[in-house]
């Protein structure tokens, strides 16, 4: 089997309910560099879908194509069965979804509270007093209330991440996209971020699509896994199906992780 050949289990077995999001043969190139070659998978309603893969395999590009920040060269993205290339469905997807950027993309000229209020003001479906109450309530739940009048640059990395997630959730989205939510974080904070995503997903019931390198954490919290390699989907299925895979690509990845773990154990024994 070549590296780019799809595995048998990449075929969708068909969800009992129609998928919330469906990608069909997405292709995207930048100049002569083909980043996404033929990406197809489905995201069912509810749960957490993690898109895994090595660096540079097009995971973030794929997410940006889904939300419309990049236009795919070929293929279709369907949200609720509607093609988001059309202005109406694209607006519906944006209205119903939020995006947590890799570097948080917090508005640095606005305070923490103003960052929370902006998405609510953009929607305009709540009165100013209600917007304020809602923003303050979520800040309190994310343990950021004390920082409401501070600017993002005055927050720690963990607080910035919590604020980015809080800002994404303040509009009660049906779907939240997380682009590398643990990038640059230490292992303890990484676990905390995944725990936060899983807890919030359960409490609020949104569908989460998470792009990440963190295989172990993703396997624990995700209901479905999509494995991307060199711009193609090598695997799409449940976390359990993924763990049962014996294809060389995944074994290599798991072996690397195991070898790293053993090195760390021996290092700690020496220290």
């Amino acid at each position, binding site marked *: 089997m070549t590296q780019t050949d799809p595995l048998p289990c990449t075929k969708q077995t068909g969800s009992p309910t129609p998928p919330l999001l469906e990608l069909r043969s997405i292709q995207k190139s930048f100049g002569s560099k083909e980043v996404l070659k033929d990406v197809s998978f489905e995201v069912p309603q509810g749960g957490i879908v993690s898109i895994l893969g090595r660096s540079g395999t097009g995971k973030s590009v794929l997410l940006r194509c889904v939300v419309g920040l990049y236009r795919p060269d070929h293929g279709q993205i369907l949200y609720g069965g509607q093609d988001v290339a059309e202005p109406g469905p694209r607006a519906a997807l944006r209205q119903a979804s939020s995006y947590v950027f890799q570097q948080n*993309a917090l*508005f640095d000229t606005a305070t923490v509270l103003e960052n929370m209020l902006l998405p609510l*003001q*953009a929607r*305009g479906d709540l009165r100013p007093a209600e917007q304020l109450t809602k923003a303050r309530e979520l800040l309190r739940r994310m343990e950021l209330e004390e920082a409401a009048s501070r600017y993002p640059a005055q927050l720690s990395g963990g607080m910035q991440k919590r604020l980015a997630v809080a800002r994404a959730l303040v509009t009660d989205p049906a779907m939240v996209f997380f682009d590398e939510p643990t990038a640059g974080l230490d292992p303890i904070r990484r676990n905390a971020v995944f725990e936060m995503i899983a807890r919030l997903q359960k409490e609020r019931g949104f569908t989460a699509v998470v792009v990440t390198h963190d295989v172990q954490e993703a396997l624990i919290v995700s209901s479905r896994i999509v494995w991307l390699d060199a711009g193609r989907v090598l695997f799409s299925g449940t976390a359990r199906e993924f763990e049962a895979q014996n294809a060389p690509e995944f074994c290599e990845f798991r072996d690397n992780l195991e070898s790293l773990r053993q090195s760390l154990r021996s290092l700690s024994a020496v220290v």
Partner: protein
Amino acid sequence: MFVASLGKSVLDGIGALGRLGTFSFQSLANIQSGGGLPARLVRSTFEIGVRCLPVITIVAAFSGLVLGLQGHYVLSRFGASEMLGTLVSLSLCRELAPVLAAIMLAGQAGTSLAAELGIQRSTEQIDAFELMGISAEGFLVGPRLLVAAFVVPALTSLFTLVGVAGGWLSGCVLLHQDANSYWAAVHQAVQPRDVFECLIKALVFGILTVALCSFQGFYSHRLGEAGARSVGAATVRGVVFSSIAVLVADYLITSILV
């Protein structure tokens, strides 16, 4: 070959002008997007108006001082030193104040604007606005363009007043020319059409400078550079292009109004 490359350059230039026009129009048309307009207008007034005051005042004072000095020696040769007020006031009002104020605006507010927008682009803040359904042009650039239309004429008027006072200082106080004849010449020389020319130039230059610097910062990711380099490139291009645009527009407006 030469004709083809010249034609391409002209077409690229026309295309860029069209994009700049569309960008400016969208910025003003969507100025309400995201709410909080009064606060954004106040902040923009501070950035463009208040922060530029010191540099405008200093440059105006020294421009007036030099004009007074040079004017005194040149006019004295022709026995027309009583015309110093006319020379200083008309030079400042019709040419120097609008042009120098706009170039100082590009140096002070324009660089800050291009760098801020460039960083907001490279840190994905502009993408975040778009995904929230907020027009980033309207939210970030619209208030600055609107404020520039009012604040830059005010700064230019201040430049003229401080410059004329500088001319008085060097010509009358330091070189002992008659102050009464200086102020009488200023009073007689400056006509409403001169003030109109000054204000119309200030309005056009202010909008041009803010629009060009914002445009460069906003689209810094298209400059072929990445990260900090793209911000640096956008800042340099913003200042250089707006300075050139001000001088070209100055010639065009002068040729129309003279």
